[in-house]
């Protein structure tokens, strides 16, 4: 088990290297930089050139890359040109916001998907199952951003049950219970919108997994031993069908990142996704690379968590 985990973690080093290189190159290829947007005619173009040299814009790429990675290792992502503050500081609160939004979305997703998937798979081809698969197909066919807009309009603006932007009521004292509740209240609608629309994957996957497991020989053997229907499900079917869902966890996180970019922008939720879009349009080079890198790292970590969960629950993967 330990050997497996250590080996699995070592694999991440080349993954991280390739990821950082890719992000760096792509960012370099983005047209323009933070200064080319400055159309203030009062600024002397020669001064801009000077600034570029100062920033190291014309240094060889590998030197720039090394400088960047070196900084990142120490938690220094450079300065944001637009916000005139260290990127690390800029990201600080947003990453916490995004983290909680993701956690809430994941919890809601599984809270919705697991019971529905189980019901649908266990009673397949009944009315209940048709209702649930119907919902899944609607979820599949509806674009997230349209659904999120509708949710925002209905529950935020029309019914006014939920706040329509921000991550916390302004003027709250951090650390108090009210502050915490306000945070929770603010992320509920975005998390629910995302969960409702992205669960279809997990529901359909779980359903098919259960239908598949149901007719396996070992289930027939369990029945022929005299196991009751509920025992067959609890002891044999669910454990085997939930396994791939655990394996799916990593992809779930990747999907979540994509979704959160839409969601945070629509709900005006100050998280990493919103920051990314903002800084792309402002060509805030150091912020874009920092957010993309962190998203990438989150995906890699997700895959790691999946593999570790899987190796804990599936004896076939356990490596001695």
């Amino acid at each position, binding site marked *: 088990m330990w050997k497996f985990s250590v080996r699995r973690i070592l694999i991440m080093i080349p993954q991280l290297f390739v990821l950082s290189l890719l992000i760096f190159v792509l960012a370099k290829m983005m047209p323009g930089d933070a200064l080319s947007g400055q159309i203030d005619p009062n600024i002397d173009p020669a001064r801009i050139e000077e600034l570029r040299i100062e920033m190291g814009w014309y240094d060889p790429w590998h030197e720039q890359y090394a400088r960047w990675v070196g900084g990142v290792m120490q938690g220094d992502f450079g300065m944001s040109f637009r916000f005139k503050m260290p990127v690390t500081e800029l990201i600080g609160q947003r990453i916490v916001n995004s983290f909680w939004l993701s956690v809430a979305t994941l919890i809601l997703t599984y809270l919705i998907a697991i019971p529905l998937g189980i019901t649908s798979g266990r009673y397949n081809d009944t009315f209940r199952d048709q209702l649930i698969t119907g919902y899944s197909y609607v979820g599949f066919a509806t674009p997230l951003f349209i659904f999120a807009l509708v949710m925002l309009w209905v529950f935020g603006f029309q019914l006014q049950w939920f706040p329509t932007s921000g991550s916390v009521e302004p003027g709250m004292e951090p650390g108090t219970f009210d502050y915490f509740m306000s945070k929770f209240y603010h992320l509920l609608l975005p998390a629910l919108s995302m969960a409702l629309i992205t669960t279809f994957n997990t529901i359909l996957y779980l359903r098919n997994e259960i239908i598949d497991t149901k007719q396996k020989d070992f289930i*027939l*053997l369990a029945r022929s031993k005299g196991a009751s229907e509920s025992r067959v499900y609890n002891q044999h079917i669910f454990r085997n069908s939930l396994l791939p869902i655990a394996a799916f966890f990593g992809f779930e996180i990747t999907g979540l990142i994509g979704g959160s970019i839409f969601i945070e922008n629509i709900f005006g939720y100050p998280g990493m996704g919103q920051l990314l879009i903002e800084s792309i349009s402002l060509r805030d080079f150091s912020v874009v690379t920092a957010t993309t890198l962190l998203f990438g790292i989150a995906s890699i970590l997700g895959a790691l968590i999946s593999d570790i969960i899987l190796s804990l629950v599936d004896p076939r993967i356990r490596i001695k």
Partner: protein
Amino acid sequence: MAEKLLEIKNLKTSFRIKDDYFAAVDDVSLNVNKNEVLAIVGESGCGKSALAFSIMGLHTRAKMEGDILYKGENIVGISPSKLNKLRGKHMGMIFQDPLTALNPLMIIGDQIGEALLLHNKEMSKTQRKEKVIDLLNKVGIPRPEYVYEQFPHELSGGMRQRVVIATAIANEPELLIADEPTTALDVTIQSQILDLIKDLKDDMNSGIVLITHDLGVVAEMADRVAVMYAGEIVEIAEVTELFEEPLHPYTRSLFNSVPNASEEQDRLHVIQGIVPSLQNLPRTGCRFAPRIPWIDESAHEAHPELHEVKPGHFVRCTCYKHFRFPEEVGKEEEHHGVS
């Protein structure tokens, strides 16, 4: 008179395909006695497993008509809790593919132990473990204490089949149903497993339904043989009787398609065509007729029934009286030509 253990009367098991029901087991009647091996033979798709599953009540969505009497009590349509008291305790089943018959996430000991746990609530944990180790010994698994803790993927196919057998016999059932227990295994393992089943039968005096399409296995194991074709039983007889005098065209084709070293054969007879799928099964007249087109239609009965040609030897449809292989027909004509 042998003691009747299982009595199947006019059993019809149908599956729903689209909006219609199609019978995979059609009007099957047979008996299994104590301390007897009844072999069921037939090509792939003829309904052997469907029959076995019907007996064990393993069909979750099939329509079942007719009676299956276990020691005189009808078990068709009984409540799940009653059925679960019978299954595993009075009847056990061995499956075709040992690679898929065990739960991949459960250790061997717990899987066999489950059969004990379900029918023996008083048994303590340690007693149960002892009994499981006993069973592992009985089915010839070396190092049972070690295997107890192993997961299925750590065992070979033959060993897994032994585990399945141990599970099936854990409560010494009186009826054992073995659905092609050796088909997925290689030849040396096959005979070991068959020997094991034979020993167990002698041990427990149980009745065994042995499903196979291997006539060698039938010759070695069976007391009586039922031949199935397209969901129906077409012939049923004592094993020696059937091997000496197979009557039904299908039975004779089966025997003829096996290479035979002792007798000289011009060439193997290959049965033409395949077993039709459920929806395309002929439902009237002799179901085998389409595959022996050279036999005159008038030879078949309109509603073929089982005829008792000798005590205990039944054949369906009168066409058996007129049946010749095409090769034989050819030869006879030659003879006529010469004389």
